[in-house]
């Protein structure tokens, strides 16, 4: 009889121990859901991309490369000037444009177009690209990333895209 009582007592204790640990774990897990969602927020956003007008057709002369700026696809109302992106826009024929991301494919620094030298140059580690975006010198593993461009009703438009990130093989996430 005593033994039975003791066993009951132990199993009661075991039950309460498990219950307390289980409840603690449950409360932590439930609280973690919104926390983890805040941590992962940038990955959970929907990826909208938008066409942004960057100028009129006549603003761009043939065979010239110009800096254009535009607002990213879905900026927060509190982003201020950080909502802006830049691209180098080259008019290669009457209706044909090429838009290069301003980011060097090496480590993302802003490349600048040297119009007399006809080269893009990066100030960080000496990356150099030709007018068509291919690598001319320095460490960049890939040509400059391109944005999509279209001409609609005399307006030149660029399709926004995520910041180009070069991955391990040197290949690029190309917005297509």
């Amino acid at each position, binding site marked *: 009889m005593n033994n039975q009582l003791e066993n009951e007592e132990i199993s009661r204790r075991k039950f309460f121990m498990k219950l307390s640990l289980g409840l603690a774990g449950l409360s932590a897990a439930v609280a973690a859901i919104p926390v983890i969602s805040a*941590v*992962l*927020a*940038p*990955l959970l*956003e929907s*990826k909208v991309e938008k066409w942004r007008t960057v100028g009129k057709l006549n603003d761009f002369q043939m065979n010239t490369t110009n*800096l254009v*700026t*535009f607002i*990213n*696809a879905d*900026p*927060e*109302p*509190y*982003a*201020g*000037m*950080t*909502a*802006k*992106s*830049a691209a180098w826009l080259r008019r290669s024929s009457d209706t044909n444009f090429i838009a290069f991301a*301003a*980011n060097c494919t*090496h*480590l*993302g*620094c*802003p*490349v*600048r177009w*040297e119009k*007399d*030298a*006809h*080269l893009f*140059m990066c*100030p*960080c*580690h*000496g990356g*150099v690209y*030709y007018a068509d975006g291919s690598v*001319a*010198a*320095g*460490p960049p*593993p890939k040509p400059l990333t391109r944005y999509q461009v279209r001409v609609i009703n005399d307006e030149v438009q660029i399709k926004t*895209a*995520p*910041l180009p*990130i*070069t*991955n*391990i*093989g*040197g290949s690029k*996430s190309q917005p297509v």
Partner: protein
Amino acid sequence: MKNFLKKIWKWIDDRSGFSESILPVITHPVPPRAKWSYVFGSATLFCFLLQVITGVALSLLYQPSSKEAYQSLQFITNQAKFGNVLRGIHYFGASAMIILVGLHMMRTYITASYKYPREMNWISGFFLLIFTIFMGFTGQLLRWDSNGVWSSVVAAQQLGRVPFVGEYLARLLLGGNTIGGQTLSRFYSYHVFIVPAFIFLFVAFHLYLVIRNGISEPPKAARMVDPKTYRSWYQNLLKREGVPFWPDAAWRDIIVSAFIIIAIIALAVFFGAPALTTPPDPSMVQTSPNPDWYMIPFFALFALMPHKIESIAMLLGPLLTIILLFSIPFISNKGERSPLKRPWAMFGVICVFVFVISLLVIGLQASWSPNFNTKPLPLTDIKSSNPDSTIIKGVHLFYAKGCQYCHTINHYGGKAGPNLTTVGNRLSIEELKVRIVNGGKNMPSFGGILSKEDLNNIVSFLHSQN
């Protein structure tokens, strides 16, 4: 009155347990003859406290928002009373912490203090090193100017090299697909809440281990560490010759820490905070991002290593360094501690030291970057004393076509390519043409860029440089 105060103290002491539990910790016995080389850890700790206090003060004035941080920094620097000094102390304090963490780690390695039973001291210190570097990086980024924006892009690019998940990590770091409203909020949270919380935790653990395992005694050649007998030998040493930590050993720590903190404040008053560059506008591309000095060695490494292996090295380099540093106490945790008996270990320390300092020096010169600020070469500085029109055109083209960004002639120009002051002695006209048209290992080919006439003008100028 005196009795009354005594009574109050007695009450506090009884209820708080100060004399019972805290006092023995402060006066615990430590090995004798631990001299000036033992002060770096405590100096790091005091610098960290200085960073916490000045950081909290800065947070009273700073706006952690991508949109407004720049304006608030201008306010702190130019308007707030002592704001510039406050920013300066936080900046020089960060620099001091990086240097002191490095010195502390080197001293620990040189005297092999990581050996039994202090392996965990080393490992917790290793984590603190990583946190300190991360704080340095995120801190320079919170100075949210164009440098801050591009530093975050560079960091995202490096994370992008991680296989499979690199792109996700990069987007998590930036707080979105591009720089934006969430970017600075995230870095602020890393710098002000998340990493400091870990630092407090690990500092507490690190200090607890110092008390538990004791300060390592100064090493002596041929006195081996034997895990079987070390603890009892160490306890006997303390019983025989131990001195109380406070004040016999700690006065040196206090003096050095106080001196360093005064030096930091003096530097801040004298030089002020690092200047803000242009506003944080990612569409402004006419900017040359440059990290703070303690990140320069990494930055230099990325320019200097062979380009083919770079993406792999960007991933494996930090990973192998971390694995190596982490495993040091597991590779050898017993035997000799004296640096005199561990020549290869000393050789390694010297190599690492020379390597990092060289990278820093080379990185500060950044000769691989085009020199965008170069001024046109005046005709008085060329070799030809009586230049004809082709040479004069060549001089102008040498500047206009960007040659001078990378090549120096008579102190004018960049250093990415060879100095061409006397190139006429080395290369013939034909060789010059071939080189310019085809380019070279690290030089663009100008065949499609230069007209025949331009090429001839540049070549005749260069050939006259003899």
